[in-house]
C-alpha cells in the first residue's frame, strides 16, 4: 500500500479534521486505520443496528443509479465488507470485472472472506489502495463507487482527482455518504441519536465507544450536499447531481466524466 507522504516540511504542519479534533494530515490515515481495525469484525452487524437496516436501501438505490452493464469494469472504493461488490459482481457477469479496494487491511480481509463464503468469485479482485493515489491506469473503470468512505479520506480533493483520472470517458462516479439533514427537527433528533445513543450501542456491541463517537463527529465535519457537488465539479466531473435519502441524512452524488 502506498501512503501519500507530505512533499515538503511545510506540508508536514498541515492539519485536517479527525472527527472534531484537529490533527496533522500525516496522522489522519493512521487514526482512521485504527478505527477501522477496531470495528472491522462487527462492521456489518453495527451497520444494521445503527441504521436499522436502512443502509441496505441506500446501497440498493446506489446500485440502481449506477447504470452498470454486462462486461463493465467497476471499482468499489472503500468497499469494506463488499456489500456493493457482491451485487456488482453478479451484474457485470463473467465478462466484467469488479475491484474491491480499501485502504484498511482488516476491512479488506473481512470483505474477501465474506464474499468468498457467499460464492462471489471469479470476476472480483481485492486491492489495498489509498483513494488519493489509486494504483490503476488512466481511463480504466466504467463506474466507481465510494460508499461511506470519502469522509475518512485525508485529502478529499486529491481523492476525487485520482478517481477522475482512472475513470473512462463516459464513466460515472457515485459517492454515497452521510450528509446534512434537510429538516431542522430531523437534524436535532439525528444529533441526539448519533452523539448519545450511537456510542453506547458501539460500546455494548463492539466494546468500542470511541470509534462510534468518531463516526458521529466525522459525519458532522463532512461537506454538505452542495459543497461536495462543487468539489466534484472542481475535480472535473460533469452533470453532477445528488439525491437526498432519509431526509438528507445520506446523499448520493453522481458525476460523469466526458
Amino acid at each position, binding site marked *: 500500500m502506498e501512503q501519500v507522504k507530505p512533499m515538503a516540511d511545510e506540508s508536514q504542519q498541515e492539519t485536517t479534521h479527525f472527527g472534531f479534533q484537529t490533527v496533522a494530515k500525516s496522522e489522519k490515515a493512521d487514526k482512521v486505520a485504527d478505527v477501522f481495525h477496531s470495528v472491522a469484525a462487527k462492521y456489518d452487524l453495527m451497520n444494521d443496528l445503527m441504521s436499522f437496516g436502512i443502509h441496505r*436501501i441506500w446501497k440498493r*438505490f446506489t446500485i*440502481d*443509479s449506477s*447504470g*452498470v452493464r454486462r462486461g463493465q469494469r467497476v471499482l468499489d472504493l472503500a468497499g469494506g465488507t463488499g456489500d456493493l461488490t457482491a451485487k456488482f459482481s453478479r*451484474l457485470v457477469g463473467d465478462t466484467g470485472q469488479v475491484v474491491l479496494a480499501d485502504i484498511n487491511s482488516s476491512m479488506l480481509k473481512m470483505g474477501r472472506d465474506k464474499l468468498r463464503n*457467499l460464492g462471489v468469485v471469479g470476476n472480483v479482485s481485492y486491492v489495498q489502495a489509498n483513494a488519493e493515489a489509486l494504483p490503476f491506469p488512466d481511463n480504466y473503470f466504467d463506474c466507481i463507487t465510494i460508499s461511506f468512505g470519502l469522509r475518512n479520506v485525508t485529502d478529499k480533493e486529491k481523492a476525487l482527482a485520482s478517481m477522475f483520472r482512472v475513470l473512462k470517458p463516459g464513466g460515472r462516479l457515485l459517492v454515497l455518504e452521510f450528509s446534512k439533514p434537510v429538516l431542522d427537527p430531523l437534524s436535532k433528533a439525528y444529533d441526539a441519536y448519533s452523539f448519545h445513543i450511537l456510542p453506547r450501542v458501539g460500546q455494548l456491541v463492539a466494546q468500542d465507544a470511541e470509534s462510534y463517537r468518531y463516526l458521529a463527529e466525522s459525519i458532522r465535519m463532512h461537506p454538505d450536499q452542495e459543497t461536495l457537488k462543487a468539489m466534484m465539479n472542481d475535480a472535473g466531473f460533469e452533470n453532477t447531481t445528488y439525491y437526498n435519502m432519509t431526509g438528507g441524512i445520506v446523499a448520493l452524488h453522481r458525476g460523469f466524466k466526458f
Partner: protein
Amino acid sequence: MRLTPLITAGLETALNRMLYRDRSLKAARQRLVGQVLTLRLEELSHPLVLVFSEQQLDVLSDWQDSSDCTVITQLKTLPKLRDRQQLTSLIRSGELQVEGDLQVVQRFSALIDLAELDPAEYLAPWIGDIAAQGVSQAAQRALRLLRGEVARRQDYLGQTLTEEWRVAPGALELAWFSEEVDAMERSLDALTARLAQLEAK
C-alpha cells in the same frame, strides 16, 4: 427517496427465499443463469428487472443494458405466471405482452411453478419441525375460519339491508328489474323501428 428500492428489496428477498433455497430447483434455476427478465407493470412507473445468477436473483428498478426478455402486464396477472399452461392463453388474450426471448419467461414460469410455498418450512429452523407444522396448520385453520366468518357476516348484512330494512333491492329483485329494463328497451326499439317504417310510407 422513492419507494422503488423498498419494492425491489421486498421482491428480491421473497423471490430468493422461494426460488434459491431449495436444492431440488437447481436444474430449473440453472436454465436461467445469466438471463435478464424485465417486468413492466402498468401500475408501476419503473420496471422490475430480474437478473439471474448462480448465487441469487437480483431485482433492480433500472437496467441500462439490454434485456433477454421483456414482459408487459398488470400486477393482477403476475400470480397467473405460476401456471405454465396458461402462458399461451395469457399472451393470446393480450393480458401478457412478451418482447424478446419467450423461453426466458417460460423458464421463469416453470421455476416458480416448481417452488412450493409452505410456511412451516420457514418456521422449522427456528422452532422445530413438529411445532412449525402445528403452527402452520393452526394458522391455516384460523384463516379458513376467518374467511368463513367474513362471508357469513357479509351474508347477514346483505339480508338485513334487503329483507329486513328493505333499503336495498335483493339479488332476485335486481335481476327482475334488469330484465324488465331490457324488455322495455326491446319494446322501445321495436316502436322506434315501426315509427320509422310508418314515416317512410
